[in-house]
């Protein structure tokens, strides 16, 4: 599954992203399953709200963490997220 650079990402309506107090982690919940997220993955997914495309997500996170060169890592993670159905385009 390849990323369309122009289209925004939106979090899947069939999954739920949620902060778990007991685990001190963000998790993705879906039928009978759960994925525990590290902080950077969670930050990326929270920006998948149907308004931002790849460039915009990268720009926003680079600004937030005052760094550059995140494109490759973010792209890799978004590809995984798309493949797993956690996020959608179109």
């Amino acid at each position, binding site marked *: 599954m390849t990323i369309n650079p122009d289209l925004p990402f939106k979090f899947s309506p069939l999954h739920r992203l*949620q902060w778990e107090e007991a685990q001190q982690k963000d998790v993705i919940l879906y039928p009978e399953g759960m994925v525990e997220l590290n902080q950077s993955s969670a930050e990326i997914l929270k920006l998948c709200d149907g308004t931002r495309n790849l460039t915009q997500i990268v720009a926003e996170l680079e600004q937030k963490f005052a760094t550059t060169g995140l494109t490759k890592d973010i792209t890799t993670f978004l590809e995984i997220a798309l493949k797993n159905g956690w996020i959608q385009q179109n």
Partner: protein
Amino acid sequence: MAGFNKTKITPPRWLLAELTYACPLQCPYCSNPIDYAKYQSELTTEDWKRVLTQARKMGAVQLGFSGGEPLTRKDLIELVRHARELGYYSNLITSGYGLSEEKIIQLKEAGLDHIQVSIQASTQELSDHLAGTESYQHKKEVARLVKKHGYPMVLCVVIHRENIHQMPQILEMAEELGADYLELANTQYYGWAHVNRDLLLPTKEQFEQAEQIAQAFKEKVAGKMKIYYVVPDFYEDRPKACMNGWGTTFLTIAPDGVALPCHSARELPGLDCPNVKEYSIEQIWNESKAFNFFRGFEWMKEPCRSCDEKEKDFGGCRCQAYLLSGDMYNADPVCSKSPDHAVIQQAIDSARASTLSADEKPLIFRNSKNSRILS
């Protein structure tokens, strides 16, 4: 004493709320205990709310409303709403029997996340026969309504000798109904399935053929439908890592309030499983004899004790060890290292002989009458 060692206790993540043993269906592989009819009492709404609250506080996040048929509980919507407020991801595990569109909408509004519908076979005749109740058409309609109202739809089909030949049609049905997930649950031989094993256990050839078909389908629908394949452990060399390890992840509450480390555990002798009417979930999980019984590795006998795979499969399933070897401390006989491993081949041979026998015994259906006769 088996347990009470210094194993680090991890919090529960999965709570299975068996709301009731009442069920309009009579599936002959039901995982409820054979003697379920003697447990008449059910927890009150307030009991269940307290259990949900306490388990959530400890870290449980996946919640299964199961049974029996959970739809027979009048307070289901109230419990779903309470679960949503607490932040659970709620799964309704249902036969679909008696589920109307109105109820599907109400459950969605109350915060239910997912409905798993089970269908017994790909044809009406066989599905209704296995369910012991006319239900096939309604189940398919329910599956469509579940999709229509925006739930992820999980179709569950329990696989055994009566329906394994329908694998291609079962997969077609899942596609036609637009399932997001398909659970192909090879029968696990506990409870009613244990009683009916000679009639349900397929041959190795049947398994391999069905698995091949399912595997090819999985690749075909990748990205559209996820397949959960519950492994037929009688044809494996190593046992399953049952419950992800005893008392590590799963907490089952039976209809009468008895807390169980797995849904079959009430068949094991001497565990003294605690009841939520007397103890808090925290006490039960951390301190009870039952939940500490098989934690860690101290309880193990050989060949598990010195086995380099014990941290991978925890010696397999305690209930299966008890059912098949008569000793719940033994290695799961599914393991080829188990001294009792021959009982697996005997079971396979016995099932095969039964298919060839001219006067095959009938299936024993799961209902209160049979429950009383068998227990």
